[in-house]
């Protein structure tokens, strides 16, 4: 498996650390309520198809990356710096 780090280019999977759903970027406000926090911390979809998750280029530039990929075909559709994605969210 290969991932394209937006900083370093295409690299082997083993340089990356996988953490899970990119929902981790959408941290709720402290008073958002239990349901919002449950969704943020615990509830995850397990799609057969397109998913967005967070990886870190651990053995490279340390950038956190949002990877859009297909869990069925293993195709990597898009990679973007998490910091850029987060900025675009606000």
């Amino acid at each position, binding site marked *: *498996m*290969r991932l394209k780090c937006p900083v370093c280019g295409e690299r*082997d*999977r083993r340089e990356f*650390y996988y*953490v899970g759903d990119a929902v*981790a*970027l959408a*941290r709720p*406000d*402290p008073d958002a309520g239990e349901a919002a*926090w449950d969704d*943020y*911390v*615990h509830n995850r979809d397990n799609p057969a198809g397109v998913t967005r998750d*967070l990886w*870190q280029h*651990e053995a490279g530039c*340390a*950038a*956190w990356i949002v990877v859009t990929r297909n869990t069925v*075909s*293993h*195709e*990597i559709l898009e990679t973007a*710096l*998490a*910091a*850029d994605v*987060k*900025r675009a969210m606000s």
Partner: protein
Amino acid sequence: MSGQMTQVNRLDGGQIDRGSSLKFKFDGKSFTGHAGDTLASALLANGVRLMGRSFKYHRPRGPLSAGSEEPNAIVTLRDGARAEPNTRATTAELFEGLTARSQNCWPSVKFDVMAVNDAASDFLAAGFYYKTFMWPASFWEKVYEPIIRRAAGLGALSMQEDPDQYDKGFRHCDLLIIGAGPSGLMAALTAGRAGKDVILADEDFALGGRLLSENMAVGGKAALDWTTQTVAELSSMPNVRLMTRTTVMGAFDHGIYGAVERVSDHLFEPAAGKPRQILWRIYAGKTMLCAGAIERPIAFENNDRPGIMLASAMRSYVNRWAVTPAQRVAIFTSCDDGHRTAADLHAKGVKIAAVIDTRSETPMSMDYEVLAGAQVINTKGRLGLAFVEVQQADGSMRTLECGALGVSGGWNPNVHLTCHQRGRPAWNAELSAFVPGGTLPPGMSVAGAASGDLSTYGALHSGAKGAADAFGIKAADVPTAADTPAKQSAFWYVEGCKRAWLDQQNDVTVKDVKLAHQEGFKSVEHLKRYTTLGMATDQGKTSNMGGLAIMAEIAGKGIPDVGTTIFRPPYTPVSIGALAGRMRGMEFHPTRLTPSHFWAKERGAVFVEVGNWLRAQWFPIEGETHWRQSVDREVKATRASVGVCDCTTLGKIDVQGADAATFLNKLYCNPFAKLAVGKVRYGLMLREDGIAMDDGTAGRLAEDHFVVTTTTAKAGPVYQHMEFVRQCLMPDADVQLISTTEAWAQYAVAGPNSRKLLQKIVDPEFDISNEAFEFMACANITVCGGLRARLFRISFSGEMAFEIAVPSRYGDALMRKLMEEGEEFDVVPYGTEALGVMRIEKGHAAGNELNGTTTANNLGMGRMVSKKKDSIGTVLSERAGLNEEDALKLVGVKPLAREDKITAGGHLMAADGPVDAAHDQGYVTSAAYSPEVGSMIGLAFIKSGDARMGEKMRLVSPVTDSEVEVEVTSAHFVDPEGGRQRA
């Protein structure tokens, strides 16, 4: 007697070096062969057809093929530690001194006791094990399984450490070509001439594929000459890498291929410094699968006698290795291809008993008899073929004497690697075979016989075209060659046969497949698992098709409707050694050494692995025979005067930037914004779910500069988490992080004389008196006359203590200096055990307490969690379930009787009442012998523990079968007021 004379079946010609004579042993008997031979070709040359016994029925078996698809001729190669079971004799290259043994037989391959299974075969049909060994259940593990495993099994391990090295490597290319037959060579020429980076890999030790085995013309010359010339041109291209003895064993995601290069398998032992094998990870822009085709056998009664083999394999033995399997040979074929074998053998002077062709219209011969519309219905011979029984077109029976029978049922494209990304082969009615289908691995195309193009010209042409199409370049000129595609018909088995072998490696017969169907295993996947058809180490390369065809016929369906199973990596078995590479023993993971490691080693330290680090556990001195003596001494000496501990391994993360304090405020549950410059604060990090993640300290060296420490184990994860918070939650904050764990060597100097010791090395302009440098102070200083250092006044032991950090390269020198200057205070170095004892005595939480289930509330730090700010984990730390009335609280326990043992992991129960999970009151996380208290002590989480001081409880450990009475105490056994650390 010369070798040549004993090689009774050696013919003229071939691609062997007759000038060489290689001695080898098979089952203890000596033989000779030539360089260029395989073990199988050399044995056949010496008249040996019997090479092993089958897996289940222990039937005598010889080679079916001349390549890696071999199901039968499986031997144990080499002796002693290098012994390698399950090696295919058909691919093992001959070398001087080779030794091999047949498998699955005892006491010998010619007289095998377990052959009784064959006579009992009526009871051992498909599903026998499932049906028989079901009851009683307890018998399976203790009785049945060990017996079955001993009787069955494929070879045995030497049980000795493999003396050879294995390596891993990485290669990149524009085009990876798998297979160096006619299509692969033309693809390489096309891409190579266009300047592409090409890797041409082939499992064989010679390049050419089928061209090495065929007596035909290519480009107006002998196929072998064309091959030699082409390989020479490719060798001269710097952009083309030819990899022989290299099996591309798997197609993985995103154009990554695994390949095993057998660097030294063809040698008696590897050359000095060379690995036995290399596992390559190849990153390919494009890939062409040019893996050719595998001939398929025909099932008929007793079709497994040694001497019965694929007709194409026979052609390989004759043309490439100049070997005939017997002096008198018959051919059984359902297509024209079988006739080519007869012609080639005849040309070399081998007597052809007859060609038995299932078709009524067949090519005829002037040189030998051709029986059209005939079938082989049985064979005879003990330990090898002697006669075949033929039913002729008119129904009459005839017995032919022959020592070998070549069988040809047509060819199956070698689609193995096209399935590795779940591509499902498609049925091609014209070829009566499966061809590559479904979604191929990205970037892969298929050429030559592997794609169903079964003529030589077709293979040459499709190879050139495939490479040209892949890159939009000009195809290399295709040489002339035969372009009549082999006609093949669907003829899978002879009517009425029962013990006709489909899968010779797993001993699956036509009868087994019929039985499976009869018992309801009608899906092809079920058939496979019930009969084990195609589940041996050859993955059914020569057997799957026959099984499918029979299934289809019984079910009254077409083969494509029955479907096919797909192949998985690896293409051929891969040794565990190659997968492990150099990651064996201590090299399984990196070993990290602190800068003063060698000093500690000189002092005789006993080391322990912590994460990847080696840390000194204790430093025994003369006369100490038990670790407790050393640890108690280190603790006492430190508390009495001064001790030094290497704490370099703790994570150190530099945090800089205008928003550094804001950042730490987010990260830690307790406040950091107002921490003064020159001060250190203890910090607790929570996970977002409110559970404690890690603790440590953060020292503020400047307004915009903090140094954060983490535990040794969590140094990596915490740094990762901090980067997550920085990049993913606060991308606009002005804060930068860098891990400096390796940059600084850090030592804890603890004990009442710690300041006096440090004053001897800290440069005089820095005042470290209690007034100028109080508890929890930090500063950039210099030591030993100008060496930059960082000093922190923090204490894990509860004593007056400092941590001093110097650039790593000075760590060893600093440690030696501290020991030298500390002599007047009887300084001791202490290890992780003494460190642990002192922190338990002081009641400091560590990894055992921050165990992934505990909260700040459990740790007695609930009030530290700031409600005024939104830091990671604060919201969910307030969940009701984590804050119940009787939540676990960190306390101390000590035994009522001094000599009693506190067991970490033991559970606490009320002084009386039942001992069971329902009455569980908590558990002990850490335990140690405390020299200060004079007994063992423990840290424990107990329900409402903070309100139960002085309560008598029972500490039970069913695991160690112990129960002792304990008293609940404060977790602070030593200096609970903290006077010492502030002195």
